[in-house]
């Protein structure tokens, strides 16, 4: 089994994701340069957080045109496991590999803090080690994490159980106060309809060791390993 972590110009959580996979999951992992056109040999690809191309245009809007993204698209079409974290989620939405869009936080400021997330669907490639309704503590760090989709799309992903994580309070209640950025239906993470592509604004790779204040992110990353081993 091999993980790949894509480096776009401006990625800055690539090393964190790499270390989490190598040191905490204990799985083989390699970097994938943004100009690479071949991603064969990987079982799971991570699009990491950061500010690809500075995000001076709409977040993720330039990165989706990187040479590597054609290969990533094919990888996903062929059923490969693909997860976008923060900026990676934004890129996946821009590339239409996931439905909806991420717009500026409703407070118009960058937010960095630990948040509580409720696991909405634990029967996925990315959450199978969690229990349904489990509350995870994982940090967010973004300026544009406000999930938006038109009414039809939103209904479709809700009906289809594609919402995997929602912002909630410490007791697991999904409330407006627990929504840090204005996301519709408190959505923090989703999967595509096929279930092999996930995007989430919170950073699981920042919550994989007790010294970082939480190990809940390990559940997300290890779930991928479980599914790939199955």
């Amino acid at each position, binding site marked *: 089994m091999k993980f790949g972590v894509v480096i776009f*110009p*401006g990625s*800055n*959580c690539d*090393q*964190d994701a790499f*270390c*989490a996979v190598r040191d905490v999951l204990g799985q083989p992992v390699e970097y994938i340069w943004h100009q690479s056109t071949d991603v064969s040999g990987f079982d799971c690809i991570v699009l990491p*957080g*950061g*500010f690809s*191309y*500075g*995000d*001076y245009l709409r977040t993720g809007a330039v990165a989706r045109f990187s040479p590597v993204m054609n290969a990533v698209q094919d990888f996903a079409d062929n059923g490969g496991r693909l997860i976008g974290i923060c900026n990676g989620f934004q890129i996946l939405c821009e590339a239409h590999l996931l439905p909806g869009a991420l717009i500026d936080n409703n407070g118009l*400021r*960058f*937010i*960095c*803090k630990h948040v509580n997330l409720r696991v909405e669907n634990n029967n996925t490639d990315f959450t199978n080690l969690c229990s349904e309704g489990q509350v995870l503590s994982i*940090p967010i*760090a973004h*300026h544009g994490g406000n999930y938006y989709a038109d009414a039809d799309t939103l209904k479709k992903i809700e009906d289809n159980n594609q919402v995997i994580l929602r912002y909630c309070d410490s007791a697991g209640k999904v409330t407006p106060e627990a929504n840090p950025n204005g996301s519709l239906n408190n959505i923090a993470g989703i999967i595509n309809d096929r279930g092999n592509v996930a995007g989430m604004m919170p*950073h699981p*790779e*920042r919550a*994989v*060791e007790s*010294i*970082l*204040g939480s190990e809940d992110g390990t559940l997300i990353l290890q779930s991928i390993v479980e599914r790939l081993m199955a």
Partner: protein
Amino acid sequence: MSITNTEPIDPKVYQEMGLSDEEYGKITEVLGRHPTYTEVGMFAVMWSEHCGYKYSRPILRYFSKYKEAIDGAGLENAGIIDIGGGYGVCFKIESHNHPSAVEPFQGAATGVGGILRDIFTMGARPIACLNSLRFGSLSDARNRYLFEHVVGGIGFYGNCVGVPTVAGEVYFEECYAGNPLLNAMAIGIMKHEDVAYARAEGIGNPVLLVGSRTGRDGIHGATFASVELTEESESRKSNVQMGDPFTEKLLIEATLEALKTGYITGIQDMGAAGITCSTCETSAKAGTGMKVDVRKVPLRETGMTPYEIMLSESQERMLAIVEKGHENDVAAVFKKWGLHAVVVGEVTDDGLVHVYDGDELVAQVPAKTLADDAPTYQLKTSEPAYLKDVQNYDLSKIKEPTDYTEALMKVLGSESIASKEWVYGQYDHMVQTNTAVLPGSDAAVLRIRETTKGIAATTDCNGRYCYLDPFMGAQIAVAEAARNLACSGARPIGATDCLNFGNPEKPEAFWQFERAVKGMAEACDFFHAPVVSGNVSFYNETPEMAIYPTPVVGLLGIIGDVEKRCTSEFKNQGDFVILISGTRVNDEEKSEPVCELESLGGSEYLNTIHGLAVGRPPKLDLDREKKVHEVVIRAIEAGLLSSAHDCADGGLAIALAESCIMGKVGAEISLLANCAPAAALFAETQSRIVVSLPTDKLGALREIVDELGVESTVLGKVSGNKLNISVNDVSLVSAPVAEMELTWRTSIGSKMDE
């Protein structure tokens, strides 16, 4: 080729650039002719206070490491501290005050960018940023605007480059209204063998300009930093540079990767004075010279003159000197990261910086004269007249509050005391996944991968104390910073300073500067924290007022076992709450509780409740201070403590309240006092740390306390969900933790969102 037949420069021209008639005379003497227009510009900026330290240099000799370096091998890499395991750390703090006053967002952003380049140009990977900020009160719209955009600019830059902003401080005082302070600090880590040098070695080696294109932004930024702010300063916006953190992120990765090739013989970042500074400093350090052609510099605008190109402070650029024949190997790394890397010249053996505009020689000056021989001046000092009045204020006539709980709530909600979550919540403080103690505690802690160690970092300065007594205020800044480190379990290893003062040409301001530097230097020596880097920022005044003297110290410490790190919040119901202190309090056996009235001098209580900045700063006994730290560090290492929190701004009551709020628990506290109860609650007596621990560990703590000969007092217990404090058995404070939290946590945010 040489320059001949130059005409005298119009005095108005060089005076406008900040040079005096005598300095112009010295230039003609050195050159043996009149300078060209480009040369005058180069001298003006290199000999400004900002680059040349022409006023501060004699005083900076109080710093032992600085004196050693100046008298010996030079300043370079004096900044690297060995932390064992083959690793070194380097760190530096720098001001960007004037740019932030006129263009807060870009001023702050480029302040962060500049200090980061100082770190990775040494071959170190930046692992953390801190910042120390000062503004006028948030009740004023202009101050809110400055605050919002300075914080926004720091976040914009730091978040994008992927370096966590982990700690800092923010104070609000009227004296900073016209001239806010932005001091940015960065920390880097490296393997010793990866250290890079800013030296132009090797005659004939090519000189590469890498990174961004050069534009007209920031021309004479260093000169702008060396004058007072006035109404006209708004028109100086073009002196402010524009930051591009995306390019900086690429530059960090490309530089560290290019250094690994082993072909870079010298490298220097470009900050103040741009190409002028980097060419003459790298040559001067190596005893070589350099030839550069400005026409080869990649430009962002057309029609730029040699003068503009040499003085531009466009950001995200570096000068690299490369082994001849390997320029393409090095350039390839930068090009891989999408950056320019262009040969603009070569190293020469004649000690001169030659600037060509194509075939035409436009400047030819001795590198060493430009870099090292700025004229220095012994300025007059005079003790300011206000000092006697404020110091002799009779504190016994201060009226006691009618409601102590209300007073506590007011101090908790004051802008300088209230939670800074509104600030650090906008900074990515977790990227790189090393932050082991998040912002909000006394010091941030970062783990060092592949070792058991941790680095603790903090910045500190109470400007009000320095206004009341610059010597003592500066010593307290160092003592408090070291106390912050001790609360996390760390011992200091090094310091950096950012000296923010008024106009040095005014004897009163220069007196403050000299006294503060002396105090800080002595205290740093005492704590074995060599000052390895620093920055001086003068002229922090407007026609209305000067800032408080604000010598900010950035202190770094090491924790041997990062798993043992301690934080400031109470954790367990039933834990004892103990005050470790240099002097006695509450000791019934010795029957005489200390009167702390004097320690109300300069306190936040006097400022918030009575609107006063009077008295003397609290007394400080460095020896006792250090012993208190040692007790707490040893107790943390022995695993005795549940929490440790520095007792500083706001006094004992605020320290207790903060430990309650952050731990979401209450405490039952009883104090003894033999003078005004307000002093027992709010005096800012030094050398005190509030700790909590399980009751069965008290004996072990007392052993350490006795061994070091300091005092420990049981103040009470962690209990319930209210903070109750009695003084001499009279209940004075009863505050629900939830109410205190609301006041403390939302004070700043609610003002900003109005």
